[in-house]
């Protein structure tokens, strides 16, 4: 039998809870923290002064409250001082940012990713961005680590990335490459793009307050970040959420993974561009051009968008029936495809989703937009700090 938690454990837990609250909700008065966290006033006071001592939060009197009585002190996360490096390796670009505690992007850099550049090769420009940012950090700044969002299947524990370009499966030890590229600067956590976007939208975006969320990220393929019961579903190897490879059409076309009729062969970028007669083009702009053409009345583009929308509805209906989510977020190029084909997506979902499941599901677009990947990647890095604020 496990002994009840020690006083020290309770305190660590409370410190983490308080820091997480101001990290997610921003500046909060002590009085509000008392009611939100259900701790008494003196405990909040003691916890706050511990966190101030560790340089994680500041406390100040509010400017004006317009109410009578002594105003309650406001606790703010030290966004300018405590930060994480957030890196994002996407299909067509590479981004790096410094994100302060509280989820504020302090600075960010971006460069194009030429086609054919391997994930490991992307470390070089990332390392350059990080050293640029590092030289500008104020002296009292404190780095809690780095988080990386990568499009591809990523294993969290060591940052192994598995990819399936046309030639078959490849393993790329991204975590290792990053560790040697960035130098010793705290822990490096690697996550799948859709997973970290889900994390960001769940903590401070379109899915805030919902504990069952599916974030669908579309680029060339489709990936999902799944939050069930408030926890990320990443599976045994950490690769979970590859919904793009659920087979929806056994008679469909061949997929890059070696299978046939995967969901992404019906709804991915290639399918939309092929159906709309633009098979020679690729990339995000090409997808947006199809949606644009459809809205302007191009009948081939409209047809392509309707067909893809119908297939999206099939997949979403399956996911709704399995996970019973409150929110489904369409991110990446799926955002625009959703808004352009919502009638088909919703109709198919309504036709195949079980009534009790589809009644309460909200279909939404991201609130954090393209920042989600960076904020979510930083969230991975902040996780260690929030678990135990005084350790690092």
């Amino acid at each position, binding site marked *: 039998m496990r002994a009840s938690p020690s006083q020290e454990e309770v305190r660590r837990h409370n410190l983490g809870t308080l820091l997480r609250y101001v990290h997610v909700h921003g500046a909060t008065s002590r009085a509000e923290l008392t009611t939100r966290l259900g701790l008494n006033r003196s405990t909040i006071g003691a916890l706050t002064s511990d966190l101030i001592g560790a340089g994680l939060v500041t406390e100040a009197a509010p400017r004006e409250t317009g109410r009578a009585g002594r105003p309650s002190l406001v606790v703010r996360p030290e966004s300018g001082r405590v930060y994480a490096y957030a890196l994002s390796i996407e299909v067509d670009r590479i981004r790096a940012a410094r994100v302060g505690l509280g989820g504020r992007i302090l600075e960010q850099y971006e460069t194009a990713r030429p086609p054919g550049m391997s994930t490991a090769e992307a470390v070089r420009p990332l390392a350059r961005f990080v050293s640029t940012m590092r030289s500008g950090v104020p002296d009292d700044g404190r780095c809690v680590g780095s988080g990386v969002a990568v499009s591809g299947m990523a294993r969290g524990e060591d940052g192994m990335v598995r990819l399936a370009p046309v030639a078959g499966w490849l393993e790329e030890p991204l975590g290792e490459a990053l560790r040697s590229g960035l130098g010793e600067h705290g822990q490096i956590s690697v996550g799948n793009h859709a997973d970290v976007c889900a994390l960001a939208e769940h903590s401070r975006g379109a899915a805030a307050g919902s504990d069952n969320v599916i974030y669908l990220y579309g680029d060339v393929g489709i990936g999902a970040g799944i939050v069930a019961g408030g926890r990320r579903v990443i599976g045994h190897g950490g690769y979970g959420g590859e919904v793009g490879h659920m087979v929806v059409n056994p008679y469909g076309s061949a997929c890059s993974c070696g299978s046939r009729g995967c969901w992404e062969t019906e709804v991915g970028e290639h399918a939309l561009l092929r159906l709309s007669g633009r098979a020679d083009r690729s990339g995000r702009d090409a997808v947006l051009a199809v949606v*644009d053409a459809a809205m302007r009345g191009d009948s081939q583009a409209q047809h392509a968008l309707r067909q893809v929308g119908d297939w999206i509805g099939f997949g979403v209906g399956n996911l709704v029936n399995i996970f019973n989510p409150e929110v489904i977020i369409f991110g990446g190029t799926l955002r625009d495809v959703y*808004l352009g084909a919502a009638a088909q997506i*919703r*109709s198919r979902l309504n036709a195949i989703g079980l009534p009790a499941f589809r009644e309460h*599901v909200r279909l939404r*677009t991201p609130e954090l937009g393209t920042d989600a990947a960076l904020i979510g990647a930083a969230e991975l890095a902040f996780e260690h700090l929030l678990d135990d604020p005084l350790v690092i």
Partner: protein
Amino acid sequence: MAAKPLLELRGIDKSFGPVRVLHDVSLSVYPGEVTALVGDNGAGKSTLVKCISGIYPIDAGTVTFEGREVAVHSPRDAAELGIEVVYQDLALCDNLDIVQNMFLGREIRRGIALDEPAMERLAGETLASLSVRSVNSLRQLVSSLSGGERQTVAIAKAVLWNSRIVILDEPTAALGVAQTTHVLELVRRLADNGLSVVLISHNMNDVFAVADRIAALYLGRTAAQVRASDVTHAQVVELITIGRSGNLGLPPEAPNDFADLLPGAPR
């Protein structure tokens, strides 16, 4: 989802002379939800909105707001209940800036002078609460804004007054794709913030992208009001074009409805 409607219309009749425009129309609007009002040209959508907003008096029927029956005789009555309408032409003044437009006719005063700082702060807060980042300066003239930005300002103006119900008449008509997506997300956010939104649209994608409920009008009657999670695109199109779809919608017209118009019919 709240079970009780914020605004409920029952049995609304409205005629212009001999022309019966609305006949026994009902509509329920729920807080935190987008209710799409759809119908063909001439189905009575705009007339219904003008009845709700107090521009046209209704001939018969009841209007219930928060469970009590109310009489809306003028736009002022509607505004007092917290009902704001954003019309298709937006009704913004090109020669005024964003803040002036948002407070036009309802300026905040300090003594005899206008309280510009307070108005600017409120306008800024309202736009920020809608996560609007595209507007550079609140003192920009409206004439310098793009179509989507104007729509945003018009919506922010409607939200500013602690309104409870915002009615949007074809907000995405005549907008480009990027601006349409932006406005749709804004519409959704209004409802997610707790407001009731009534969205009039001809575009089925817009309707399915953001609506929780769909009310279809057909020749001045309510064909049906359904949840957006219960119907398909094809069903809604049928409701709009023929007034019924399967067991949804109006009962089929009995052949003798028009019997008295036929030659040789008994009188």
